């Protein structure tokens, strides 16, 4: 819990400093900051939603990305060592936010017809609605948030477990087996440490990737709600 508060404070401080003075001709630091913010803005939000709708949903999506990224990365930071998102709370909250956002976007645009569009897609022969409608209902209104939560959560949990496993095995092999018992089998600890190091790097990749995937899917869901045809 402390991790999240620390990370949030850090994020907020960074954001305020980074955007305090944005010049037309950027300094080096500003280029770096703009790279991150610009990536979210252009590659995730505007590319998916377009300029106009993108601006409406910019703030929540950006906050979502930054929060997930920050909390994911804590999994590899010493002394934190657990991803803030590997506890279900954050993922669940963000998934609910995404859920509310894409339903809100649909209703705002089509009114109550949004549900009709979503559940009874046009161009399908009417007897097939018996099959299509439940599928659409489950996939859109049940599975989307659930998959969002589970994908993020399980990635982080698995990453955390892998790291814990590798490093505790290293610890066990090197200290207990090798030094205390004098057993050469303890040299396996070097291998497990190498695995742990590799997975740490991998975890960083996954952290960024999951933040991207989560935010991107949230944007895509909004886009699907706004689209005329489903």
């Amino acid at each position, binding site marked *: 819990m402390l991790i999240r508060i620390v990370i949030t404070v850090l994020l907020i401080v960074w954001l305020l400093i980074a955007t305090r003075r944005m010049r037309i001709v950027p300094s080096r630091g500003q280029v770096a900051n703009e790279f991150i913010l*610009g990536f979210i803005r252009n590659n995730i939000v505007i590319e998916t939603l377009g300029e106009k709708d993108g601006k409406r949903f910019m703030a929540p999506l950006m906050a979502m990305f930054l929060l997930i990224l920050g909390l994911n990365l804590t999994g590899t930071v010493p002394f934190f060592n657990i991803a803030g998102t590997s506890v279900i709370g954050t993922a669940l909250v963000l998934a609910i936010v995404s859920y509310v956002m894409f339903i809100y976007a649909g209703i705002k645009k089509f009114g109550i017809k949004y549900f009709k569009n979503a559940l009874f897609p046009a161009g399908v022969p009417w007897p097939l609605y018996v099959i299509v409608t439940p599928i659409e209902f489950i996939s859109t209104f049940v599975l989307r948030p659930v998959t969002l939560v589970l994908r993020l959560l399980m990635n982080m949990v698995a990453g955390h477990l892998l790291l814990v496993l590798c490093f505790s095995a290293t610890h066990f092999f090197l200290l207990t087996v090798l030094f205390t018992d004098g057993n050469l089998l303890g040299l396996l600890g070097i291998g497990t440490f190498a695995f742990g190091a590799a997975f740490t790097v991998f975890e960083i990749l996954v952290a960024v990737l999951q933040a991207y995937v989560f935010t991107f899917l949230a944007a895509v869901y909004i886009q699907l709600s706004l689209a005329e045809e489903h």
Partner: protein
Amino acid sequence: MLRAFFDVRAEEPPNPLIPADYDIIYSSIIFVALLIVVAIFVVPRMNRALDARAEAIEGGLKKAEEAQAAASAARDEYTAQLAEARAEAARIREQARTDGQAILAELKEQAQAEAARIVANAQTQIEAERSAALVSLRSEVGSLALDLASGVIGESLSDDKKAAAVVDRFLADLEADEKAKAGK
């Protein structure tokens, strides 16, 4: 140690899928806090910066375009002036040539006139001298001939009237003779 390791693993872990109350509450607070910061500060600032940059770039492009247009206009003007200057030069050259020809012709004419004048002068002078010579010759030839004739015939032909008549007749004969010769 091994046993302890497995003991830890064997403990019933809390189900990770069931969130604790505090988990949800704090996550929400954190997200809302971040959302507020992003919405109030980050996005507007970033949009402002990006807009300003886009504007600056567009302004720069426009300025460059204007500069280019000005440059090309100046070049056109320069080319036009150059062409004009060339035409002017050609015109002046042509003018000079025709002027030169006119002057030359005039000079030639003047020279010819002068030459003609000189020739005429010379002719009249020659004519005058000739006539003067003719007159003096006439009197001298007359007296000579008379002297000669008086010598020959022994008789003074000093009677002027007679002598003049003889000389005149002789000269007239001479002229007639010459004229007849020239007429032949």
